[in-house]
């Protein structure tokens, strides 16, 4: 099946600086596709090109089979955009934010009002419909931005860091709403630097770093390909964890030394811990966990995702 979004060698430059450096992406209908990467990876730059507000500096980009430079308005009519920073109109009421925005899509006033009510129900803001936006909490504003992105019943919804800066409860509420959307068959494209978000929401994702794609696949595939089943995290009470690297040689398939801990990549965590003790090492703390996308990222880039 044809891709809804197809990028080949897509490039974005700002002056001499290359923010997106030749990426290939295919997003299929109905899937939730993620860009996972640290600050400055080029996620927002990519999203803005897909959102047809930023012309590519090179390469091919097709959205819904159209050319974003030539057919910008036609494509944007079928997109819903939730930008990294909320740009709601804080002087209007919650409902007016949706109805006036709907008018930009040529939606009739009556339809706009009805849809606004439905969407406020969907994002659980019905009670705040007539209040101003300004006093809303961060989570509520985010949900309203998401509702606004849905006002034109878009084929693709672009979400740039939908839950950054929200407290855990607000995040879960957003995730749950996004999950509902996905079940309704809406294609989601999101960026995040939270691996748990990527694991929860994305069917497929690319790991992005320094404007390039380091790997692509489903969260499970990526973990299988680039990490082991389990990870043992060891913390030693010492100035530096570095000296322990040689002492732990061969315990796991791979080993990473971070400033505050050592990670052992192993098939069987308990077995590895036993081996650590056999070598008469006594870490201050020991944690056995399953591999995550964080480990994939560390493996691919040598850095942690969230600094």
């Amino acid at each position, binding site marked *: 099946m044809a891709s809804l979004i197809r990028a080949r060698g897509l490039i974005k430059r700002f002056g001499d600086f290359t923010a997106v450096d030749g990426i290939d992406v295919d997003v299929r209908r109905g899937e939730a596709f993620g860009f996972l990467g640290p600050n400055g990876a080029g996620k927002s730059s990519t999203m803005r090109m897909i959102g047809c*507000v930023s012309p590519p500096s090179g390469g091919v980009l097709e959205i819904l089979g159209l050319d974003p430079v030539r057919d*910008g*308005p036609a494509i944007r009519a079928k997109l819903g955009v939730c930008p990294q920073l909320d740009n709601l109109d804080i002087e209007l009421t919650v409902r007016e934010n949706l109805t006036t925005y709907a*008018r*930009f*899509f040529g939606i009739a006033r009556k339809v706009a009002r009805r849809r606004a009510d439905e969407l406020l129900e969907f994002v659980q803001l019905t009670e705040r419909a007539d209040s101003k936006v300004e006093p809303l909490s961060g989570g509520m504003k985010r949900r309203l931005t998401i509702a606004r992105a849905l006002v034109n019943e878009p084929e693709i919804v672009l979400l740039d860091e939908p839950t950054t800066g929200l407290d855990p409860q607000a995040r879960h509420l957003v995730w749950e709403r996004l999950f509902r959307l996905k079940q309704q068959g809406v294609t989601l494209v999101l960026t995040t630097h939270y691996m748990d978000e990527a694991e929860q929401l994305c069917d497929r994702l690319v790991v992005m770093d320094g404007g390039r794609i380091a790997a692509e696949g489903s969260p499970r595939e990526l973990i299988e390909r680039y990490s082991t089943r389990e990870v043992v995290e060891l913390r030693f009470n010492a100035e530096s964890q570095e000296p322990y690297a040689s002492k732990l040689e061969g315990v796991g398939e791979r080993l990473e030394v971070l400033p505050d801990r050592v990670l052992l990549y192993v098939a069987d965590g308990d077995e590895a811990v036993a081996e650590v003790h056999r070598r008469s090492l006594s870490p201050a703390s020991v944690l056995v966990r399953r591999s995550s996308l964080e480990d994939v990222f560390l493996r691919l880039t040598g850095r942690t995702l969230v600094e």
Partner: protein
Amino acid sequence: MLAVLEYHLVNYRRTWRGSALSSLVLPLLTMLGFGVGVGSYVAGGVDGVSYLDWIVPGLIASTAMQTAIGESTWPVLSAFEWLKTYFAQAAAPLRVADILGGHLAFMLFRVLISAVAFLAIALAFGTLHSWWSPVALIVAMLVGLSVAAPTAAYAATISSDSYLAILLRFAVLPMSLFSGVFFPVESLPVVLRWIAYALPLWHGVDLSRDATLGLDPGWLGLVHAAYLIAWCAAGCWLAHRRYRRRLVI
């Protein structure tokens, strides 16, 4: 573009009472202050008409200018820098021309309201002397666009409102003082007179005065109109370029 205008009108609905009131208060105060107060010192009036009758058409044009400046400075800067509403609009299927055009249309709507209010009060005070007076509204709109468009272009270029203070001090204030609103430009030194000729307001003031006093503008009227239209066209072109540079990056 209409949807963008509609958005600005919805926004205006919150504050229209206060702003409509102030567009009545201002002409009322000037009527009393300039007509009765200052006017009594200007014995014999100007060019053969009473000072109040002479100053009212100039004030209509000047009010149009002030309203246009007010709407094209902070609101534009805010839509780029603080509220970022332009960026939200750019993500919808609008073109840059729609975003700019809708906002300019709203500014002209505000200009029209303040000019109508002023004209109505001028009528009540008996200072209109011609059936051509409503033409002063068209002139007000021309003046409005001729300053709003280049000012919006300027506001789209700057990143902080301290630059707006510069604009107000070095462009708007001299323009209000030296454009023949309060005294004829002929009484200015030649250099200042040419500044008045170069800026748009004087052309509007002169046209407006011909309209309410029922004077024949002759060929100079066409020059005024053409010059204002040239400012409008150049301003819109420049604003479109500046908006594009900010919204499509």
